[in-house]
């Protein structure tokens, strides 16, 4: 059994009395791909927002255990702090910086791993220049990794949809995460694109040795790549297990998959 990298205990989030997430436990182990599925409005995205700092959880604990370090409680930290601790995410509705080029988008992702300041920016000393060169190189390599070299200097908003999704992943990867959170990465993709995404996610895990937590509706993708699946409905966790277990779980079929 590998070590845990993320351990969420009894996470609860209420909005004006409404429990959007109700005491959900979830954990991700090192090198694992974990999927979180459930009907619309079940609280998946809220769960994501809670662990990435966009919302503050009402109750419960979010612990991260960066490889080789001690566990740390990150409830209520600002999103940028959480990212710099090594947890990066993508968004359900693509949130790229539309007027920046693909390369720049990834370069922004490098922000929290670089440190040039105002003085450096103005005088452009050797260390700043070196850092800048490295940033470009790293960003370019990441674009290559996700197969977007042809779009390097294209504005993000002009990219094809599937490419935008992949660019978001590259941008998140630029923050050097040990845990990558993907919010519906396949939404709006056609089957071919989804298949490519499938390969991409697996490849990233291998190449960068990280863990992945994803929300997804495309069952084929989820079943293909996940090691474990968590199912939530009405803010509560209703099932947990390997893809096979989940597929046959009657509660999941009733609430989510429907009978064929």
């Amino acid at each position: 059994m590998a070590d845990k990298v993320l351990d969420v205990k009894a996470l609860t989030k209420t909005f004006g009395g409404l429990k959007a997430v109700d005491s959900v436990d979830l954990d991700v182990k090192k090198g694992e791909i974990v999927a979180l599925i459930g009907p619309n409005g079940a609280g998946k995205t809220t769960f994501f927002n809670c662990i990435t700092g966009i919302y503050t959880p009402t109750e419960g604990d979010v612990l991260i255990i960066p490889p080789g370090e001690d566990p740390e409680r990150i409830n209520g930290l600002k999103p940028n702090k959480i990212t710099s601790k090594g947890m990066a995410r993508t968004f359900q509705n693509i949130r790229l910086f539309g007027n920046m080029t693909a390369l720049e988008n990834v370069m922004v992702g490098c922000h929290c791993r670089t440190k040039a300041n105002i003085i450096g920016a103005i005088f452009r000393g050797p260390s700043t220049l070196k850092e800048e060169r490295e940033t470009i190189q790293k960003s370019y390599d990441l674009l290559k990794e996700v197969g977007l070299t042809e779009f390097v200097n294209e504005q993000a908003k002009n990219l094809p949809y599937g490419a935008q999704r992949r660019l978001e992943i590259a941008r998140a990867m630029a923050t050097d995460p040990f845990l990558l959170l993907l919010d519906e990465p396949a939404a709006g993709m056609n089957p071919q694109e989804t298949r490519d995404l499938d390969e991409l996610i697996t490849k990233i895990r291998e190449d960068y040795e990280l863990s992945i937590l994803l929300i997804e509706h495309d069952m084929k993708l989820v079943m293909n790549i996940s090691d474990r699946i968590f199912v939530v409905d009405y803010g509560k966790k209703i099932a947990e297990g390997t893809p096979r277990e989940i597929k046959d779980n009657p509660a999941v079929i009733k609430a989510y998959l429907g009978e064929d």
Partner: protein
Amino acid sequence: MKNLKQSILISLWFIFLTFPLMVIRVNTVEQEVEWRWMNMAFIGVGTFVCSYIWRYLMARKEKGGNEEESKISWHQTLTTEKKYAIPAAALILVIAFIFPHIVTEYRINTMISALIYVVLGLGLNIVVGLAGLLDLGYVAFYAVGAYSYALLNHHFGLSFWACLPLGALLGAFFGILLGIPVLRLRGDYLAIVTLGFGEIIRLILENWNEFSFGPSGIANISNPTFFGQEISRSGGILFIYYLMIALVIFTIFVVNRLQNSRLGRSWVALREDEIACQAMGIDRMKTKLAAFALGATWAGMVGVIFAAKTSFINPASFTFLESAIILSIVVLGGMGSILGVILAAFVLILLPEELRAFSEYRMLIFGASMVLMMVFRPQGIIANVRRSYEYHGLDRAEEAK
């Protein structure tokens, strides 16, 4: 035919609209009414002609752009291609250098005003154009700079050169002071609070006589010295002119560097999408504060020069209208575009001076051109094109390996 009918209707509508204000003038005391029927004819004919021009421009705007997009515009070539950029810059420098020697003092004076607004525009451009924070109280920092020189000079006899960095620092300090509480606000709320802040600073300067000498202002502010040497007032103007040229060059240099730096990227990212920006590990507050402080630094610095130039300041120079004009420079120029801001500052500051012959109609034309400019060219004089990063070199280097 359809156009004719429409134009006649428009013309009639405007005759109706302007009837009470343009045609009738009542003198309530003498109980007299003045009917100015000629105005009605002017309006009728004027709007009729204008409606044709409007329609033509609208049609062009809707169709237009197709060609524009395809060919690289002259200004882009000029600014990005070294082949042209260097001689162009050199030529401008030469002109800038000989300019004061071939024109009257009046022209130098107005040119200094224009250059002051160029720097103000570029400073505000950091805040509004790059970081996307709408600041309607920018003039407050300008006032801080101007008053810091005037007061320090008056009370302690501090020299211009000592005050220039102090003004910049104080500007930055006030930028942060304002920034900390209000940066949580977004868009229009931020706008109105910054407007309020600008007014607060002005009102304090106006009312706190013991501190700022109130509305009567501070007169006889010293001229800059030249290596400790006193210079005459007209020599001073020449000196300030060159100083402003240097400052403009320095500002362009800095803004350009900032734009293409780690910090500049985070500003643009912040403008584009705050949430995604945070998710990339960027500290929103710090980044915004940096923008605010830097913008304010420039305003403070140029405020010092302003005080030295006019040798007299009072709070009336720092009203909301001033902020609005600086903001107009940024937007008319094309948000984020350095060349655009410079051109817009020249147009907005030099045009009213050139229109002195029409002094009564000056502000009318000013207002109307702001509207028309936005309607027919909302992206500004020069739409900002971000420089793209050089990656070809890297690619080739890789292949060589």
